[in-house]
Each structure stands twice: as C-alpha cells, then as structure tokens.
C-alpha cells in the first residue's frame, strides 16, 4: 500500500462514524444507508487525488456524502426527502464541528445498554437488530405505535444521560 492510500485509510477510519451518522440523518433506512456508505468509500477513493490537504478533510468528505445521497435519491424516485437543503447545510456544519470527545464518549454505550430493563432491551432488539419501525414493533407487542415511539425516545434519553454520567464519573476518577 502506498503512502497516499495509507493516509486515506487513516483519515477514513477516523471520519467513518461521523459520515455514517450524517448519512443516517438524511436517510433513516439502515439498509439504504449501508448501500450509500459503499458508494461513498468508492467515490472517496476515486477522487482522493483531487483532495486539497489544505482544506478540512471532514468538510470535503461530507460534500461527497451529500452528493452520493442525492445520487441515491435520484435512483429511487419514491424515496421521500426528509430534510430540505437549508437543514442539510446546517447539519453539514454541525457534523463538521463534531469533536473527537463526542465520538469517544459513545464507548460507554455498551455499559449503559446493559443497565436497561429487560423490557427496554427487548424494544431495542426489535428496533435495532430486527430493524422494525414503531408500527411493526407495536403489532408484535400489542402496544400502540405512539406508545412505542415514546418508549424508544425515553430509552434514548436514558442512554444519553447514562453516557454523560459515565463521562463525568470517568473524568472524576482520572
């Protein structure tokens, strides 16, 4: 592997979680997101020679990701557009300014997931492993879709608070 490829691989590995999240914010469907990520890595490799190292890598990468999402949407004419251009601009700025501590604190997630109740873990399993939407989960569990949505929101709040608590505790310990 030449130096340029090694450099690209290094940059890509650190940026990948943010790019993946950016694409998820535009295309909530996990399967579509995975397909688009494949296209992005291909496009990044093909155009890396044109990347100017003086410019921020993340901004350049998010530009490519945005284009690939647009290409994906053109292919699937029925794919609904979730966020408008102005909102996507604002999101690009936000993701460009994500700092490494924002990414690293998610390392505490596993510990926090283990603290969930059995019922909440079951909901997460249906949503994230089996990729069911609230309506599908509601049918399985005999709940209303609205209650499933509320429960998922509560679980995410709980996880976020748990992660923040763990970060604070780790900070105190060190």
């Amino acid at each position, binding site marked *: *592997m*030449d130096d340029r*490829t090694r450099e*690209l*691989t290094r940059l*890509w*590995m650190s940026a*990948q*979680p*943010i790019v*993946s*999240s*950016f694409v*998820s*914010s535009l295309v*909530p*469907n*996990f399967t579509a997101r995975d397909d688009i990520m*494949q296209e992005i*890595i*291909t496009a990044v*490799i*093909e155009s890396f020679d044109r990347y100017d190292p003086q410019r921020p890598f993340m901004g350049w990468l998010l530009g490519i990701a945005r284009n690939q999402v647009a290409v994906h949407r053109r292919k699937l004419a029925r794919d609904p557009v*979730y*966020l*408008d251009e*102005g*909102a996507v601009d*604002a*999101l690009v*700025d*936000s*993701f460009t*300014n*994500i700092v490494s501590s*924002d*990414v690293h604190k*998610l390392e505490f*997630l*596993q510990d926090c*997931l283990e603290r969930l109740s059995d019922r909440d873990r079951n909901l*997460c*399993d249906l*949503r*994230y*492993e089996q990729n069911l*939407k*609230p*309506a599908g989960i509601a049918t399985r569990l005999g709940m209303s*879709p609205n209650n499933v*949505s509320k429960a*998922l*929101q509560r679980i*995410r*709040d709980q*996880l*976020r608070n748990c*992660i923040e608590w763990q970060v604070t505790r780790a900070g105190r310990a060190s």
Partner: protein
Amino acid sequence: MNHDLEQLINGHLDGCLSIEEQQCLNEFVKASPENARRLALAVMLHNRIRVHYLTLKANLQQVDSIRTGATARPHRRHRRVIGACLVALLLGCSLYWMTSNTPNRKAIAIAEYHQLVIQGRRPGDRTYQITFVKDATERPDASGPSNTKSGPDATDSPRLDVRDGRQFVYSRTAMDGRQFMLGGNRQVSWAIRPGELADVRDPLHFTEGLPAGLYLAPILSFFDGQEKMLVNDYHLDLRQPTKTNRLFVAMKKPDTKQGPRRIEILFSHASGKITEMRIWPETPDHRRTNHTLIQLVSENRLPDDWFTYEYHQSERLMKTQTEPSD
C-alpha cells in the same frame, strides 16, 4: 410551532414523522446551530446502538451454532458442555475482535483494489497467458471448466492482449490449428472465426466470450464503474502471502447471483503490478473447483492497430492467399 424538538428528532430517527412534523424539524434545525447539533448527536447515538446490536447478533449466532453442535452428542455431556462454552467464549471474543476490525480491513482491501484498477488503466500493452486449471478432486463425469463456451474444444493456452486496461484481443488455437479471436477497442467488439470475415458488434457484445467476462477488472475494464460490481457484490480481503506480494481475495456474497464464486489477484506490493489472477466460476457442485489462471507473460509493445479487427482480418486473408491450395 407546538412541537417538541426531542420528539421530532426521535420521530425522524424512526422514520415516522408526518409531512407537517418534518417541516417543523427542518425549521428547528435551520433556526440555530445548537438545534442542528442536537440532531447530529442524536443520530450518532442512534447509529452506535445499531452497530452494537449488529455485533451482538453476530456473536449470538456463533455461540448458538456451537451450542447446537454440543447438545447433539449426549455422551460425556458435562465435559463437552464446558468445552463448548470455552470454545464459544473464545470464538465470541475472536468474532468480536474480527467484527470490530472488519470495516478497517475491508476499507483497506477496497482502497487497494481501487489502486489496482487505476494501475491497470496505465498506458501500455500487456500480454497474459490463460490456463484452465483442473482440480484433481473433479468428478469423472464432469465436463470440464464452465468457461469453455467461448471457443473450440481443446486448445493450447489462450492469450489475452490488453492495451491501457481497456482494449483487448483474446486468441485461442484449437487442436486442429484453427484460430479463434475476440477483440474490442471501446468503439466496437469483434469476433473472427476460421474461414469467416470479422463479425463486428457493439463494444460489450463479445466480452461475454472472455473468461469471467466483466469480472476481469482490474486487468481489463470495459466501462467506468465496472469495478464496483466487485466492491458491492463480494466480500473483499487483503492478504500477505510473501514479503513482496499481496493477495487480494474476493468471495461472492451469498445473496449475489451473477459472477464467479471467487477471484484472487496476486500483485507486487512495491509496484502494484498484477502478476496473476485466478477466477473460480460459480458451479452448482462445489466439489468442482476448476479455475482459470491468468498470468502476465509480457509487457512488449504490440502494433498500433493490433486491437482492430481490420489488422487481424487482413493478416488472415494474406495468410490464406499465400498458403498453397490442395
């Protein structure tokens, strides 16, 4: 706006917002960078939970398969269960390690593959010798490699000439000395059969007669983006068989229908030059492991018009005219 931002963000993550709610979310996100950041952080958490569950699922499947194997044998059950648990634990740990490194390994393999494609399109002529390698375990009733459809029955080693990774001439000589040729120069593709004039078609028509056809990239590409077929439909890996060489391995994903079963590309680590490519065709019976071996034999410059049918057709005509008649 009467909506709560957190509720809108969560509805967006689950893909269940109404049009009106989606418009509200748009306005919220545009209203302040802090709102946009809240959405960004929420998506990052959402994404990470998904990754966690996928990893967990892979681990559980592995443990399950081992547990099933252990319960199938009731003798000396206690020791076996302990053994199975230990193996499960070890495999689970190694699988976790593998899955957590998979994106890295795969990204490196994809990056390297694209470098090979770029290298393959460098100007220059390359000649490859093609051998159909029969495996010793082949069943006696098997009728030989599946890619013999392109030409005559038994032949010497066919030859593939490539220019700039884009143009080709594929020639095979039958046992009786008759020569079959296929070629293409991006404008047209053509076939010349013994005693016939060239059959000229569209640029992709005769590529089907090549061993592995469209899967010859990075040695030979017929259109931009052809290499994506491999990136999308195959599991890619990069290995290091010797200090100086690298081996790129592509295994077809189970849900992919078209294409060879396995492709291996051996290349120099220093120069990126491909010295060997092996292609295992898809067969219903996996005991047949015949494969096509493509080896670089020369990089000598060929005549300028070598890749046109006119060149070879006139060669044939001249040869026929100079041969003594019976």
